[in-house]
């Protein structure tokens, strides 16, 4: 079960079945797509610049806690750098830098 409409469980069941079927039908596409989307976090998409991607990865590590396969050392260093040099964080946020 994906969701519940407690006010009408009959309707809830029917809709859940509909959603499940649609998800099933699209499973391969969605699965592929989800994988592709997740993969896009692990390699730089063409429309994202190298600097921007590096910033994204550092922030992603900070907020999701997900490791980056192959680059844990770099990310660890990035986090340590952020902690050691808070002005860099400020710089990334667009504030005044020294």
């Amino acid at each position, binding site marked *: 079960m994906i969701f519940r*409409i407690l*006010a009408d469980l009959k309707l809830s069941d029917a809709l859940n079945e509909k959603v499940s079927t649609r998800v099933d039908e699209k499973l391969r596409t969605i699965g592929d797509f989800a994988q592709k989307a997740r993969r896009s976090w692990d390699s730089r998409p063409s429309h994202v610049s190298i600097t*921007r991607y590096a910033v994204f990865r550092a922030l992603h590590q900070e907020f999701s806690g997900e490791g980056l396969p192959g680059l844990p050392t770099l990310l660890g260093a990035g986090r340590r750098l952020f902690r050691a040099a808070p002005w860099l964080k400020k710089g990334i946020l667009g504030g005044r830098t020294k």
Partner: protein
Amino acid sequence: MSQPFTVHQYHPYTAPGDAITQQMVFLRHAFRDASIGGEIFSSVNYAPEAYQIRQFVPARLWDCDLLLIHHSQGNPQLDLLLNMPLNKAMVYHNITPAHFFRHDGEMSRLANQGRQQLESFRASTSLAFAVSEFNAEELRAMGFADVRLLPLFDLKPSTVNSPFGPIREDGVRTLLFVGRVCPHKNQMQLLEILYYLNRFGTTKYRLVLVGKQDLLYRRYLDELIHLWKLEDWVEFRTGLNTVQLETCYRAADAFLCVSQHEGFCVPLLEAMRFDLPVFANLRAAIGETLGNAGVQITSHRSEQIAECVDTILSDPKALEVILNSQGERVAELEKTQCAAFAQAQIRSVLTQMRFPEKKFLELPAEQQQT
């Protein structure tokens, strides 16, 4: 004729739009309507003069029968307040776990301090108020002997929707979330859901995120938006007044909440009041606030949530059932989210204090001996 009661309130920080400040103002009005006097005190005040918030000076509290100390994070004045020879009670608003603030040292410290201070409260008074049963249970589990509920605001006067009605555009569905842009509100997953909706949905979707922003987290969301090419479909709005916020509710097609931590979640109630179908997961107090209303999402997978939102919003019969259930829930909550309930709750405490059959404001017996 007996002497009138006075109930003062304190919170370290007050600001316009802040839920705790709003509750303090609401309670002061409700108490005054019941002939119970009292002022609001704060150490750092950003609220305009109309809020009538007084600068905290310990000597100003001498005349009160009861001091309500609102607690939501570390309170630098707590030791001073607890040592004052006054009757005190805590109003607990829940404390967001510190692990959501790993990136913000100060917020993390305040969250940890807030949790530690709960113990000081428990040692000083056994009476506490909570804004939801979820929060009350947490306090009871910590050993608070007497925990009662207090409403957050008066739901009744605001039940009439705007005379302008909905202002929805054709072709694009608008999803709304109202809440601080920060990690535990999980706007990151909302973006992911939007991504799936616009990729697989039956129509295009727009996401409107209303609320103050944690700058670093906002930067992270900006990067996700760029990565997923969602620039045209996401709007951030901050610093809105009541009319602008109301416009956001009227312009939306649905309210979507995937927060990881909520002590009550007032925006769920506001959305139900504006007849927006509510989709929410069941973490923390959300299930309690929703009751049997809305769509309660059990899956944590963004693609499934997207499919659920798209399917239900395309089904008029489902929408009708959901909106009816939400109307019933709002009517149910009107009984407790109102001035009369606040007055009854505080009156019972004050009467008990003046004619103490049960001395709940004193230290527990075992602590008195030590």
